[in-house]
């Protein structure tokens, strides 16, 4: 799948099919301005496959982006975070979402 360009600045979403899961890679910074873009991309992924959110190149996300991930996670899909930075991990933990949005391996 081709890279999708969200509206906000330098942020970028890449989607590729991994082994048994869709890998959604987030590049740059995500907030209220482009949370909807991410929601739309995640909605296009087939509902019966797992999702891996690759956060290797994610520099920042705010609560509106966490809300998008939580929304997907509470809909019954398995969602895992790959390589979240310390910055992201702290926010996830402080929001009590470590179990709902577990880090991958």
């Amino acid at each position, binding site marked *: 799948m081709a890279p999708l360009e969200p509206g906000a600045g330098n942020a970028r979403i890449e989607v590729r099919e991994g082994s048994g899961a869709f890998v959604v890679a987030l590049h740059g*910074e995500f907030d*209220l301005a482009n*949370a909807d873009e991410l*929601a739309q991309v995640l909605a296009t992924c087939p509902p019966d496959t797992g999702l891996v959110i690759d956060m290797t190149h994610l*520099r*920042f996300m705010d*609560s*509106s982006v*966490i*809300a*998008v991930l*939580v*929304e997907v996670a*509470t*809909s019954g899909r398995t969602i895992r975070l790959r390589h979240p930075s*310390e*910055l992201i991990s*702290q*926010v996830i*933990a*402080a*929001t*009590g*979402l470590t*179990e*709902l949005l577990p880090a991958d391996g």
Partner: protein
Amino acid sequence: MTAPAARTGDHGQARWWALHRVAVIVLVLGLIVTVVLAFSSRTSYVHSERRLTNLQVQLTVSALGIAQVQIEQQLGRALDLAAEAPDPGATFDRLIAPFVGSKGGFTTAGLQRVQGGSVDIVAHVGAPSIDNLHGKAAARDFEQAVHSSSLVTVRVLGHGQQRLGYLLSVTTPAGIFVAGAAQALPASRRFTVPASSPDADLNVAIYFGRSTSTGALIETNAPHVPLTGTVSMGTVPFGSNFLTIVATPRGSIEGAWAQRLPLAIALAGALFTLVVAFMTEWLARRREAAEALAVENRQLFDEQRGMAETLQRSLLPEELPTFPTLELAVRYAPGVAGTEVGGDWYDVMAVDDRTVFFSVGDVSGRGLEAATLMATLRHTINAYAMEGAAPDVALTKTERFIDVERLGHFATVLCGTIDTVTGQAVLCNAGHPQPLLIAGGTSTYVDVTAEPPVGVHPARRTSVAVPLPEHSILLAFTDGLVERRGELLSTSLERLRQVARGDLAVDPLLDSIVAALVPDGASDDIAILAVQWHR
């Protein structure tokens, strides 16, 4: 609220003809420069024309001087040789003949001898008579010639003719010889100049004597005299008399283009000035319109922002309960980034005569939806708490009304009860920053682990009992107070901990925290609640 659109309309329509000051300045300056340029060009042209005319007059004067010398030589040579010759008449005839008639410049010439009071005509060549020389005036001129050795010049009018006469005398032992010659001039007093001549561009009038009265006019190539316009004048001695030359340019010596240059400069300058002034006016109006639009946008922004803040504040509690053992202080500040209303809140209420229930929360996202959801949550939690539900139970029950999957929002909430008599607090944390406990000059975050936010429906929620030390302050806040984009949350929280460990009362404490952490306003909304318990 005023109507910005009406103001703009007034402005755009009423004064379309009224120029901006800058355009008027450009117009006036441009016209002044144009006038100065055209005037100086005109002055320079006139000056140059006058100089050229003067030069031409000087040339004519020189030519006339040469002509006089020629006449004097021709007449003088014949006179001198004839006076010395044995037969003066024949010698004069022979020497003057080439200069008389169609070949020469004279129409007639003669030689007379004055001896012992009588005057004899010795020789006569050319046209029959110079008898006009015998009038009264002529006698005076003849006398003058007899007593002078230099050329006497006479202007003779009569018989429809105009002639210039020349008289020259020489004294010998045999008597005084007087040579005379006359030159016919056009009776019309008009002459033409060949187009190739340098004088072709000039109107010239030559007068006999120093006067330029019409009667003294010898000849001219101009249709009318006296000459007008850029007039140059020169006077040249002509024998015993003078010739006066008056000249003026016919058309333009420097050519038509030079003559029209000042006008061209004036027209082009005026046109250019008008165009520049018009463009300046146009730019000024555009800038004004843009400024008006910017002001309008600013007003709209401020209005929306004001509405958002008003709405937000209206959703927050108006009054805080009072207990003798509690000091309460709250702060709410909307984010400076946008106009949208946020979902942050604080609340404190009395459950009974010794227990208070408080909550601080943050609905994810912004906008009216987040704000109304915030109000719903706050009131629902309060309702359950009012019925005596423990904080964890109140949150769990409230969660029936909020589903992140359905609404797209979740809420982080820190809530709890405080027994105002014992200082015993019971806290429950749904994904919210831990509260800070400030006691005895130190501050520590209360270990009440964040469980998932409201809306995520976790399997269980836990309430934690925290005994508040006497005079300690419990500080609950939303993440807008500490959050910095790109900074570790632990770093942000540590900054707050450092700032908030003083020994201040609740109100000055909140003032100092806000001043230290968000001096210019936070990008996100902020809600803060400080509770101090005294025994």
